């Protein structure tokens, strides 16, 4: 029974995150949801209009599509490792339960 409760808790956590991510999309109209760091960049230009970045990024990405690809790769690689480790631990747990019987 306790485990059932745990599974429920996890679903609620996921639901909470999805809600928090979706809510701004509904609440805030006419926004492109640009990066907050981009706004910070604008703020820098306001405070010191003559400031010029003195170093260029080592890579120039050809566009938003490639960028989102790389972000997806980053997330997928991380999620893959998490899934692998949790899966491994889980399998180990099952084996222990079996061997106890």
């Amino acid at each position, binding site marked *: 029974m306790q*485990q*059932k409760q745990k*599974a429920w*808790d*996890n679903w609620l*956590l*996921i639901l909470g*995150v*999805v809600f*928090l*991510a979706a*809510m*701004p*999309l509904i*609440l*805030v109209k006419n*926004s492109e*949801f*640009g*990066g*907050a*760091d*981009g*706004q*910070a*960049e604008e*703020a*820098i230009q306001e*405070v*010191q209009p003559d*400031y010029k970045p*003195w*170093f*260029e*990024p*080592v*890579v*120039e*990405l050809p*566009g*938003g599509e490639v*960028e*989102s690809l*790389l*972000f*997806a790769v*980053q*997330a*997928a*690689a*991380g*999620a893959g*490792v998490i*899934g692998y*480790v*949790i899966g*491994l*631990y*889980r399998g180990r*747990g099952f084996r222990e339960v079996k061997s106890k019987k």
Partner: protein
Amino acid sequence: MKRHLLKPSGLFLAGLILFLSIGAPAPAYGMHIMEGFLPAPWAIFWWLVFIPFFALGLRSLHRITKENPELKLLLALAGAFAFVLSALKMPSVTGSSSHPTGTGLGAILFGPMAMSVLGSLVLLFQALLLAHGGLTTLGANAVSMAVVGPLVAYAVYQLVMKVAGKQKVAIFLAAAVANLTTYLVTSLQLALAFPSATGGFVASFVKFAGIFALTQVPLAISEGLLTVLVWNWLASYGRQELEQLKLIKRGA
């Protein structure tokens, strides 16, 4: 009876992809402080602040893997968690996007120093491959995300455990507060480098914090929730490891 234990690892991944497709259309701006956007003396200053923590982090990782080689997998998970979360550009109530940091989990599991290395690896990846953040600003960004964030997470966790003793609450608060702190430090760094001509440092700090902090509030909550989610999985399946790290008392 084990059927309902089908934990949503796959669904979690699908959810992440959903986030990405929602968050991805953001324009190509850097995360944290962008390349070249910190005057050279400040860039060097933050690098100098960061390097000792990185060295301590390497020592801490060395010690962990030497004493408990079987914890390497869990270490990989902590790193991967920061990797995933900092790739999630999530929309926020302010109409802009930012991302979680994922450093709280590792700090609670392995102590704050271990995350100075793992967190800066994430930042290096984003600086080199994604043109997000930068090499000159890596020192400053690492101080905010990989050093101060984890330190705060660790402190909050210890404090809440001592005062309230509720582990999940402690984890949630640690991760959420660490996320917020990371961006407050970023605001501080920018304000130090770009004090306002009229209001000085304070006016600039208010300005930068206004951009980051409010945006970050819902994301900090998300980060807290996701950290508790992964903690729940670990508590179900990685009990041995958590006991080894003395995060769960033996026989409890």
